[in-house]
């Protein structure tokens, strides 16, 4: 667990590096290309010097896929994950950004705990753990909307464009955009987050959804926001959507923005 926290913060995934390299080729703005190249240089320095890619080492967001035949012995899994986060953030000199009482004194918890943990029970006996350090800048600009059932893809696209436009340079574009469509209010938000775990640029396994991801991405990249909001043709690297059935009265849509430092690390036990 501790190692996943440090690796995710020090080493930018190959998927993101490849997407940034492809973005350099596509970007029309010279300043945009200069910024993208600096981001690639940053990734090289962070990996070489074992420094965090970004000072915002995030909320430690943990996704656990627990095989239903696995048995966790010797204590609480929650406690074990929390202990690993505490150790990883201390040993890796990662920034501790969590405050214990968000509405009163906002005092720092001092060890970046608690993590936010999501569990899924899956077939089999493996335990899969994914860590996503989620920075505040892009998270702050994310949004959940309950659209009208008849609105469809057009309204979803408009919502995404509005969220990305309002975020501008603050969310550190080029972005990865996670979309959770359907289910219910809280589930849509978790789906949008989970969509961000998919390797950047890997389309949905469902052809219809993959085509929608591509259409929305093309529209987002017409906004002109560009790398770090300084203008350009690459505002997002990818759109990842997860779609589930929902009530016929509803169309829940969560838009979760991820910055270009789309960090994640995983292990299968």
């Amino acid at each position, binding site marked *: 667990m501790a190692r996943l926290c440090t690796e995710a913060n020090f080493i930018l995934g190959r998927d993101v590096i490849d997407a940034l390299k492809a973005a350099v080729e596509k970007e029309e703005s010279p300043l945009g290309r200069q910024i993208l190249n*600096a*981001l690639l*240089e940053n990734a090289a320095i962070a990996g070489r010097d074992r*420094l*965090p890619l*970004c000072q915002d080492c995030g909320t430690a967001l943990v996704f656990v896929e627990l095989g239903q035949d696995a048995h966790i012995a010797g204590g609480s899994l929650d406690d074990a994950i929390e202990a690993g986060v505490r150790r990883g953030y201390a040993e890796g000199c990662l920034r501790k950004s969590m405050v214990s009482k968000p509405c009163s004194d906002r005092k720092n918890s001092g060890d970046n705990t608690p993590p936010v943990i999501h569990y899924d029970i899956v077939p089999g006996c493996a335990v899969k753990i994914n860590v996503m350090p989620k920075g505040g800048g892009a998270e702050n600009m994310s949004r959940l909307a309950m659209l009208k059932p008849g609105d469809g893809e057009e309204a979803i696209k408009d919502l995404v464009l509005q969220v990305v436009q309002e975020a501008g*340079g603050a969310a550190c574009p080029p972005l990865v955009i996670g979309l959770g469509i359907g289910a219910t209010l809280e589930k849509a938000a978790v789906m949008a987050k989970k969509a961000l775990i998919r390797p950047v640029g890997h389309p949905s396994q469902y052809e219809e959804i993959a085509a929608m991801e591509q259409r929305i991405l093309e529209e987002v990249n017409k906004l*002109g926001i560009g790398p*770090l909001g*300084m203008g350009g043709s690459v505002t997002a690297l990818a759109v990842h959507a997860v779609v589930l059935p929902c009530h016929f009265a509803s169309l829940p849509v969560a838009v979760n923005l991820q910055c270009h430092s789309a960090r994640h690390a995983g292990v299968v036990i």
Partner: protein
Amino acid sequence: MQYRQVHSPLNSEDILNLRAGDSVLLSGVLYTARDAVHKRWAQTLEKGLPLPVDLAGQTLYYMGPSPAPPGRVIGACGPTTSRRMDRYTLPLLKQGIKAMIGKGERSPETKLHIENYGAVYLVTLGGAGALLAGRIKKAETICYPDLMAEAVMRLEVEDFPVICAYDSLGGDIFSSQTARYRRI
């Protein structure tokens, strides 16, 4: 890309000559301040008390670093979102700050205040904290250590890369450049 070398704190001539879109390498002194510090400073000024740091002419950097690993000056140290400081910026312009470094756009009111007070708003590389760490030669916490990563630090920087986002004449790179690449 042409870089212009500028010393911080910026003198009035540098400020007048900077144009939105200019790439600049800053050397000299920066003071860090982000959300919690801005709130404390605002409360101090509301009580009519002096700030613990003399900000006249100074450059603020909206940043809270990761801890310095052994043998290093500082950890990763990229900018945070500037617009969260907007509500506190006018009183600090009145205290004499002349430049701010952060990421992203400011509110229209703040942009106007920056112009009215003859200051500049600079942006640096969001999410490139490891690269920027190499440009910081000295870092010292000078105020509010209880705020940990959010405490005020005095930084000495060399060739710290920034882009002038808002110049002192009202020029704005965000609106001019995004309009240029907009296809909707």
